[in-house]
């Protein structure tokens, strides 16, 4: 038996810069806050939900059951099960797909997806030699053996290892990868800065209009996205020095996402459950697809969404013209520009095994309330930021309006999904 999995709504905390207002908040704290805001908005205090799925990209080992622990700290019923899922920057969308699929299969009738990340409270680990010495010491049977083990510690062992976001197989950071892509696809500095400016202006306008009043709950005294700069401009952005791609590079701190802290959640249910519980229905989850590219073999790291979108649209018999709105996660301004270019590149698309180019979209339907450049990008949270935002926008546009989500992720992956207003 198959059910319609629908988006009822969402809640997130405002996103903020790394080591900013949430410097002392853990992933557990932020995810709990995002869940509690969702519970309050939809009157779910004490309710048992089918399942909660969330994840974090940077996770402490002690957070092995992060989501379940956050559920226990939240106002949800303690007998709500939960699991941790992680698919790099696609996590918040992948958890949504996971919950939606369970709903569609009738395994659960309601659930919450989400994601959280803190680059302030990132797990710091010890160096490998020190780890080996510590393990030896704790396994030692006598005090003398333990002392012998400790005697091997050298000062260089003590330097902590911060987690890095470099690709293990190429040794390149994500920005360095994207700089290669940016250059290969001929994306200009101005194109990127224009995307960044638009992101800030559109997000600022949406906040002004009260659009986020029922999507965001303040946290630790922060009431709005703290990275947002309403007064930024192409002129101001043009003054920034490149941070990726060498001195001639076009990618700056202004057109790349900032390291961010934040958490986001999505409330999902079967259409029947939503109606029975007098909950609003914004949109249904139509389909989703994940693709990966062979970046160790030289493919563009962040263009996974091209094959993913191509295969999903073909399966659905849809074209880009069928969409009222498109959300492309702004990992970098140039990811958006290259994704759009790649969608419209006949050879590139055929090379991926698709029937041809996907085509173009009207720029006015893209990221209409801004995206990650302005909002910030707490890795695992972003997908769960986009889903309710798009669902609400589609609902405003009327039943049948379709929206496409495209997210690139580390490891050469791309996650895409289609929503449709009910």
């Amino acid at each position, binding site marked *: 038996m198959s059910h319609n999995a629908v988006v009822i709504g969402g809640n997130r905390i405002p996103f903020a810069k790394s080591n900013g207002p949430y410097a002392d908040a853990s992933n557990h704290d932020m995810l709990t806050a995002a869940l509690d805001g969702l519970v309050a908005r939809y009157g779910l*205090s004490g309710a048992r939900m089918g399942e909660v799925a969330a994840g974090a990209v940077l996770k402490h080992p002690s957070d092995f059951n992060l989501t379940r622990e956050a559920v226990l700290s939240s106002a949800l019923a303690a007998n709500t099960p939960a699991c941790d899922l992680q698919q790099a920057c696609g996590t918040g969308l992948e958890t949504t797909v996971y919950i939606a699929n369970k709903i569609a299969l009738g395994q659960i009738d309601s659930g919450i997806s989400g994601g959280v990340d803190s680059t302030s409270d990132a797990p710091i680990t010890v160096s490998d030699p020190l780890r080996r010495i510590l393990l030896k010491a704790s396994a030692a049977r006598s005090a003398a053996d333990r002392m012998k083990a400790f005697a091997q510690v050298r000062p260089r062992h003590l330097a902590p290892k911060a987690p890095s976001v470099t690709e293990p197989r190429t040794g390149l950071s994500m920005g360095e990868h994207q700089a290669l892509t940016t250059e290969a696809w001929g994306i200009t500095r101005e194109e990127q800065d224009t995307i960044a400016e638009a992101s800030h202006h559109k997000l600022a306008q949406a906040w002004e209009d009260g659009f986020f009043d029922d999507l965001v709950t303040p946290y*630790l005294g922060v009431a709005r996205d703290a990275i947002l700069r309403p007064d930024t401009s192409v002129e101001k952005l043009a003054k920034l020095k490149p941070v990726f791609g060498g001195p001639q590079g076009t990618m700056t701190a202004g057109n790349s996402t900032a390291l961010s802290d934040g958490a986001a959640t999505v409330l999902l249910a079967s259409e029947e459950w939503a109606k029975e519980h007098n909950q609003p229905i914004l949109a249904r989850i139509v389909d989703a697809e994940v693709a990966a590219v062979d970046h160790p073999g030289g493919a563009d790291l962040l263009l996974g969404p091209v094959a993913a979108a191509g295969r999903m649209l073909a399966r659905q018999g849809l074209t880009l013209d069928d969409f009222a709105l498109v959300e492309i996660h702004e990992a970098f301004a140039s990811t958006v520009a290259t994704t759009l270019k790649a969608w419209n590149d006949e050879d590139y698309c055929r090379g991926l095994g698709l029937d041809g180019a996907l085509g173009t979209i009207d720029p006015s339907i893209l990221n209409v309330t801004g995206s990650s450049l302005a909002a910030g990008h707490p890795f695992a949270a972003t997908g769960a930021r986009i889903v309710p935002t798009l669902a609400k926008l589609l609902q405003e546009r009327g039943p049948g309006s379709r929206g496409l989500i495209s997210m690139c992720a580390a490891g050469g992956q791309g996650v895409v999904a289609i929503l449709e207003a009910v």
Partner: protein
Amino acid sequence: MSILEKTFTSAPGRAISRKAGLKDPPRLRRGRTWPSGAIIHGTIGDGSLVADTLHLLGRAVEEPVVDAGTDAPGYGQKIGALVVDATELTSISQLERLRALLRPAVRGIERSGRIIIVAREDHDGWEAAAAARALDGINRTVAKELRGGATSTLVWVAGDTTASDLLTTLGFALQGRSAFVDGQAWKVASTATKIDDLVTAPLAGRTVIVTGAARGIGAQIARVVARDGAEVIAVDIPPAGEQLAAVANEVGGIAIQLDITQADAGAVLAQHVAQRGRGLHGIVHNAGITRDKMLVNTDTARWESVLEVNLAAQMRINEVLLDPDTDGGLDDGGRIVGVASTSGLAGNKGQTNYAASKAGVAGLVIAMSSDLASREITVNAVAPGFIETEMTGKIPFVQREIFRRSNSLDQGGRPVDVAETISYLLDPGSQAVTGQVIRVCGQNLVGA
């Protein structure tokens, strides 16, 4: 806490202040609790309204001790309350009977005990009117003379007010819920309502909107109406969302981040109610702000923001919720409760804008109540005096201590005292109470 406040509240500080005549304020009886001593039933004439109501309330009553004129007989042990049925009072000479009932009772009443006088509001002839008005002076004075947290209340009734009509009011006045309502008089009219019991969860299955619910008095209103069974829709401005969510989750309600001054605020609220599909029993307009300045320094911005939030916004919201075409509007038989302020009723230096808005709330309640009577919607307000909240906690200590002590109960009220009064007004059983402004002020020295 300032150094002054710390010294004052420390043990030696308290000993000194006690010697100086500043007594520790009495601890008030609160909640759904009855007086512990006997409830004495006295009458002037042979009206049976009070006896019938006390019977419905399931309260055993005892005979009064009546003062014979010069001697002063006592009750032997402390009494819990004296309830006087003065519905047959018509002459000045009958007031002597009231004195004779009150004298032993005031002398023998327990801490947080109750003196309650029930009398007819409409009178035949000049003398009856004078005698009735005399009760008002007596009530206020007795309230001032009572000690140990005991209070006095005067309830006006109509000729055809029944025990059903009076039930929730007498229950409220006797119970600890009315702890900080002192020296007040309000009216219980007559309706077709038939209830014969005081229930503990009168709002069960009903939805109530509370504005300004993120903190202070509003948060407490949410808790008390939820305790009394209501499903709460808690409203506050988006920046207060974190606390609002905590309150909503605590009471099992829902949170709406909404500025009530928004043009579409009424429509947003109605849409949520319609979505929930359970109708709307009541709305409590608690959200309020102050922008204090002497009138000579009050500019348009200060004036308008206060009148917008405290008065105009709730009027616009009411209009939407009362429109029969609104899906998710207020049910017939529903409740509207405003929050005025003693500053509004009495005037307060530096608060022209606030006083205007809060007196306006009283005016609105009186005007709306008669217009909505045919739909059995009641409209009332509470007027808090000095209530201990985050807001009043910012007043400098000495001034705060003066405010606290300038009422008959020698202390500030608590948010729960305001909330209890509001929940009594929201009670479906309180159908006969409409167009009233009840002060929750411990009989503040200032004000009407």
